[in-house]
C-alpha cells in the first residue's frame, strides 16, 4: 500500500503499536482512558452530570441529527461510561460497545436492534436462568420467539433454523459452569445462515476467552460479575465486532433502510462497522432508557484494571477447590471443565486455555438435606445468588432459586436436590478447602 507522501508533511510522532497489538493486561488498564485533556486528571473522572452545554444552536442540531460527535444527555452517552465502553470493545477485540444498566438490559438492546415483531432466534439451553426467562417469557410478549436447543450437539442449531431466525445466542462457558460449547461449528452455521452469533461472555470474561477471535459477531456481558469484580456495581455491555455484513441479504432492514426517527439516516451506510452500536444506542437505549450510571461505570473501570490478575487467581482457586471436592467422600460428582475427567475438558483447553472459569456445580451424596446443611454450615462462603465476586459464594439452587419448580424441571435445569453451585473467590485457597471440609463433615 502506498503510505509514503511525496513530501515530508510534518515530523511524525514516535510510532506506537496499534491497540490490537497490546496485551490484555495493558488494555485492561489503558484502553479508552487517556488523561483527561483539560485538567490532566490521570484517573477517569466521574462525570456526574445529566446533560451537556451546546456550543451554539447549529452544534445542538448537528448532535441531535447524529451528524457530529459529542454529548447531549447521559441517557445516550456520558464521558465516564464512554471510557468503559471503549475499554470493553478493546478487551473483546471489537469495534465498538454500548453499556447498559445491567446484563439483561444489554441483551435487550442487542435484540431490539436485531429483531422485528414476528422474528425468531435460536438460543442454547445452557444459559444463566435469568436469560432463559427473559427469552422465553418476556421477549415472547414483544413478538420475538426463541427456540431453545441443546448446544452440546451443534447440529441442533442447524435443525432449529427457520427463515425468520435472525440470530444465534450462546454462552461459550455456560452458567452454572462445567459446560463448554464447541464454538467453531456454531459460527459456521450462523455464517451460512447470514445471521450474527451472539455470545454472553460473562462467565469467561475476555481474559479467559475472546469469542470474536472465534468468529462471534456480538458479545454481551453482565459487567456486574467478574469485570467490576467486587460485587459493588450493576452493569451490562454490548460489543460489536464490526465484521458482520448487515446488507448481505436484506435480513436487517433496521440497519440498512432509512430510519424515520433520524430523517432517513441509514445506520450501516453512515457509521459502517460501528453502525450496530450506534443504532442500539441512539434508538434502543434512547427510547427504553436502561442507561448505566457514571458511578457504576467508574467502579467497573476500576475493577477491570485488575481483571487479568484476579482471573488468574479465580481459576487457580477454582481448580484447587474442584480437585479437593472431586476427592471428597461426601461428594458424588463435580462438574468443572478444568478437571481431566470432565467431558468438556478438551473444549476448555481449546477455548479457555487460561482456565475454565471459577463457577461450577457439584453433587452431594447426601442429597437435599446435605445441601441445606452445607450452605448453612460454611463460614467463609457467602450464601447468596450472585457470581464473580472477590468473595467465595455458595448456593443450593433446589432450596432457593429453583424452589418453585417441579423435580423434573429442577433436573432439566441442572438444579437437582443434590446440586451445589460455587463461585470461587480470591481468598487463600487452603482456607476455602478447610471451610468446605468442616461443613461437609
Amino acid at each position, binding site marked *: *500500500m*502506498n*503510505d*509514503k*507522501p*511525496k513530501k515530508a*508533511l*510534518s515530523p*511524525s*510522532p514516535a*510510532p*506506537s503499536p*496499534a*491497540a*490490537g497489538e*497490546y496485551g490484555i493486561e*495493558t488494555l485492561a488498564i*489503558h*484502553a*479508552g482512558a*487517556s*488523561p483527561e*485533556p*483539560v485538567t*490532566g486528571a*490521570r484517573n477517569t473522572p466521574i462525570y456526574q452530570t445529566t446533560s451537556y452545554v451546546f456550543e451554539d444552536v447549529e*452544534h445542538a442540531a*448537528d448532535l441531535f*441529527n447524529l*451528524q*457530529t*460527535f*459529542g*454529548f447531549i444527555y447521559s441517557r445516550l*452517552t456520558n*464521558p465516564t461510561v*464512554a*471510557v468503559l*465502553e*471503549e475499554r470493553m*470493545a*478493546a478487551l473483546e477485540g*471489537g*469495534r*465498538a*460497545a*454500548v*453499556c447498559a444498566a445491567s446484563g439483561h438490559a444489554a441483551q435487550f438492546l442487542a435484540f431490539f436492534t436485531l429483531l422485528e415483531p414476528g422474528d425468531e432466534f435460536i438460543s442454547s439451553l445452557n444459559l444463566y436462568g435469568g436469560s432463559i426467562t427473559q427469552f422465553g417469557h418476556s421477549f415472547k410478549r414483544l413478538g420475538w420467539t426463541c427456540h431453545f436447543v441443546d448446544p452440546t450437539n451443534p447440529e441442533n442449531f442447524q435443525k432449529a433454523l427457520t427463515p425468520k431466525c435472525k440470530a444465534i445466542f450462546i454462552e461459550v462457558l455456560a452458567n452454572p459452569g462445567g459446560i463448554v460449547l464447541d464454538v467453531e461449528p456454531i459460527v459456521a452455521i450462523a455464517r451460512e445462515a447470514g445471521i450474527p452469533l451472539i455470545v454472553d461472555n460473562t462467565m469467561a470474561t475476555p481474559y479467559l476467552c475472546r469469542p470474536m477471535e472465534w468468529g462471534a459477531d456480538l458479545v454481551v456481558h453482565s459487567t456486574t460479575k467478574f469485570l467490576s469484580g467486587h460485587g459493588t456495581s450493576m452493569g451490562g455491555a454490548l460489543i460489536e465486532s464490526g465484521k458482520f*455484513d448487515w*446488507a448481505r441479504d436484506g435480513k436487517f432492514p433496521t440497519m440498512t433502510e432509512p430510519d424515520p426517527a433520524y*430523517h*432517513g*439516516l441509514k445506520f450501516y*451506510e*453512515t457509521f*459502517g462497522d*460501528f453502525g450496530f*452500536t*450506534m443504532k442500539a*444506542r441512539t434508538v434502543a437505549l434512547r427510547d427504553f432508557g436502561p442507561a448505566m450510571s457514571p458511578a457504576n461505570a467508574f467502579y467497573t473501570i476500576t475493577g477491570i484494571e485488575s481483571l487479568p490478575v484476579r482471573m488468574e487467581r479465580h481459576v487457580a482457586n477454582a481448580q484447587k477447590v474442584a480437585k479437593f471436592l472431586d476427592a471428597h467422600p461426601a461428594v458424588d460428582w463435580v462438574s468443572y471443565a478444568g478437571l481431566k475427567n470432565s467431558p468438556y475438558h478438551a473444549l476448555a483447553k481449546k477455548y479457555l486455555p487460561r482456565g475454565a472459569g471459577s463457577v461450577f456445580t457439584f453433587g452431594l451424596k447426601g442429597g437435599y438435606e446435605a445441601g441445606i446443611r452445607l450452605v448453612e454450615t460454611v463460614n467463609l462462603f457467602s450464601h447468596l445468588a450472585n457470581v464473580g465476586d472477590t468473595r467465595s459464594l455458595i448456593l443450593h439452587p433446589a432450596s432457593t432459586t429453583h424452589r418453585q419448580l417441579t423435580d423434573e424441571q429442577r433436573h432439566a435445569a441442572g438444579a437437582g436436590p443434590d446440586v451445589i453451585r460455587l463461585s470461587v473467590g480470591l481468598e487463600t485457597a487452603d482456607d476455602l478447602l478447610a471451610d468446605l471440609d468442616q461443613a461437609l463433615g
Partner: protein
Amino acid sequence: MSKPAAEEPLHYDDALLRRILTNAKTIAMVGASPNWVRPSNFAMKYLQRKGYRVIPVNPGHAGKDILGETTYACLRDIPDKFDMVDVFRTSDAAGAIADEAIEVAANKGAQVLWMQLGVRDDAAAERAAAAGVTVVMNRCPKIEYGRLFGELGWSGVNTGIISSKRRKPGP
C-alpha cells in the same frame, strides 16, 4: 455508498492519517450533496467546523452554493489550490475521479486522494501512488479525525489509541 469490497483489509498507520489530517487545509469533496441529511453534506459541515475549507464538486449542482462554498462540476474547474481530494462517490466512479486527481495534482497542489468509507478501487490507488499521490481508501475523514483527535471514543468506539500523554484538545 456501496458496501466495502471483499479484498484484503486495508491498514493505514495512525501516524500517516494524523499527518494527512493535520497538514491538509483545503479539501475538494467530489460528490458533496446539498441535501443536509446526506452523509457527504454533514461530513463537509463537520470538517468545516474543524477548520478545513471544503470545496464541493458535483456536476449536478455546479455554480450553486453548498454550506457557503461554490460548487464546481469537476476538479479541473476549481480555481483555487487544494491539498486533498475526498471521493464521496461509489467505487465504480472512483477510478475516473482518481485519474482526474492525478492529472490536476501538480497544478493544484493535491497530495492526497482519500476515498470514503465503502469506496475502494485498488487499480486507481496504484495509478495514484505511481503519480506520487498518497492514497487512503474505505475510510471517512470525519470518523478518522474524530478517532485520532479524541472524539470518536465518546460514542464507545474502539479508537485503538493507547496513551498516557496529556493531549491538547483538537489536532
